[in-house]
């Protein structure tokens, strides 16, 4: 009887571990497949010109997506510039002072905001910035992307700060350290790794967003670094190229996809490196 029981348990165990391993393998395979596909299809489109030149008209060979690379950096960078301070501040508030109804409300709103479809965020930015100003702009795109980043940063910051043991806060307070200073110099550094990773993930997620940019940043075949003008971005360029009927453009779409994936990957690696340095030095 007991022997039977034991055998049955061993079989269940093997089955469960097997199922979990299979799932993990499938997930890894899907990831590798996407990356490999983009790499194989995209690498042939890559050359120096692709990074350094402007797009050429249909039928004219050569050219690149330099304006979209710079445009994406501008739009995403501005979005982060707006969303990171506000998100950090909100996360700090929720974790350190937000045990009240206002805190609950903010938390709820952040969750709702996280669930708003990205195209709605684009329409929102369109109405309050583009429609008023009368023209598309990089800034309006940044605003839409920033709004998308905000809830992720708010909630990860809060979660990470809450993981910092209370004994550290009390340890600092007991030394006669003012509360704000305890948060800035003790609690926040202790959570920095997780917070930075959260920010990098949020940036990675919005860097590939297309819908919010359709009627905000709009796209632009020319050089533009003026944030008040429409600007090309990698996802929009990719979209335009991908749906075109021309082989050359479709191949460039793959190249653009590869550059986009590469940039997100680099951003993530930098984030991890920063985390490790922060962690090692401390």
């Amino acid at each position: 009887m007991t022997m039977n029981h034991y055998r049955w348990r061993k079989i269940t165990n093997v089955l469960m571990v097997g199922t979990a391993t299979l799932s993990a393998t499938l997930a890894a395979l899907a990831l590798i497949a996407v990356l490999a596909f983009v790499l194989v299809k995209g690498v042939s489109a890559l050359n120096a010109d692709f990074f350094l030149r402007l797009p050429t008209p249909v039928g004219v060979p050569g050219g690149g997506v330099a304006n979209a690379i710079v445009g994406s950096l501008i739009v995403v960078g501005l979005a982060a510039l707006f969303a990171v301070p506000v998100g950090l501040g909100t996360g700090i508030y929720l974790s350190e002072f937000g045990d009240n109804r206002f805190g609950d409300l903010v938390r709820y709103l952040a969750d709702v905001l996280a669930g708003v479809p990205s195209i709605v965020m684009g329409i929102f930015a369109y109405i309050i910035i583009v429609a008023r100003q009368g023209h598309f702009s990089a800034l309006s795109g940044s605003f839409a992307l920033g709004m998308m980043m905000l809830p992720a940063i708010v909630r990860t910051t809060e979660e990470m700060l809450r993981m910092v043991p209370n004994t550290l806060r009390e340890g600092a307070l007991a030394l006669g350290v003012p509360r704000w200073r305890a948060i800035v110099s003790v609690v926040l550094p202790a959570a920095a790794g997780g917070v930075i990773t959260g920010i990098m993930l949020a940036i990675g997620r919005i860097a590939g967003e297309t819908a919010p940019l359709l009627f905000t940043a709009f796209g632009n075949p020319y050089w533009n670094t003026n944030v008040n003008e429409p600007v090309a971005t990698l996802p929009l360029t990719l979209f335009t190229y991908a749906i075109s009927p021309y082989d050359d453009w479709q191949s460039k779409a793959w190249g653009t996809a590869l550059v986009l994936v590469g940039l997100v990957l680099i951003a993530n690696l930098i984030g991890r490196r920063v985390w490790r340095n922060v962690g090692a030095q401390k």
Partner: protein
Amino acid sequence: MRDANESRAIQIEELTAGFGSFTAVRQVSLRIPPNKITAIIGPSGSGKSTLVRCLNRLHEEVRGAWMQGRVRLGGHDIFATDVDPVQLRRRVGMVFQRPNPFPTMSVAENVVAGLRLNRWGRPAGLDDRIEESLRRAALWEQVKDKLHVSGASLSGGQQQRLCIARALAVEPDVLLMDEPCSALDPVATFKIEELMKELAEDITIVIVTHNMQQAARVSDYTAFLMMGEDRAGELVEFGPTDRIFTNPSDKRTEDYITGRFG
């Protein structure tokens, strides 16, 4: 000299404190003499921690916490409206149950954290203060070659002495110790007890402990707390440690220290 010492005496008058509708300690009155070690003993839940956490007003940082009565440090009411709790805590240091060095700071940075995080920039003379505080905490010899490693990489006993050094660096008049040895092994415990005796020459020490042998070993005075009918802690007896342990005047104290309950 006597006056200088008196500024480190703590007079607790009818202190009642709790959280929300719960009363943790009720009507405690006692005088903690300066430059002595006073142990607070009692069973779990008798309000020992709440009592000492009122002495540096850390109690009020907890949500829903409240306190009534009066606590005088050197004759001055520390609950008075014009007393800044942040300033108060620089005079009344605290060491916690679990060593809590700041994980993102080195050993040296931990020691002077209280000094550096109290003002802008970097005050002068910090290096001297680091060595002095670590020497007072009997930790200097062990860490002088690794001042720049993380405080969290030390052993448990060393971490606790680092926390003591950190508290001492602010030059407090009083040091509160909330079960400082309960997470430590016997050797580390012994070292901390030795250290406490030395420190008591300069400062007043209040130690909460579960361990009656520890109270008997290190303290000059002992306060025994027990919960009353509605689970609020009350002071049963206070007096010189010798007398409390050899000739308690209250039956409950005798039962507790002879291990009949708790």
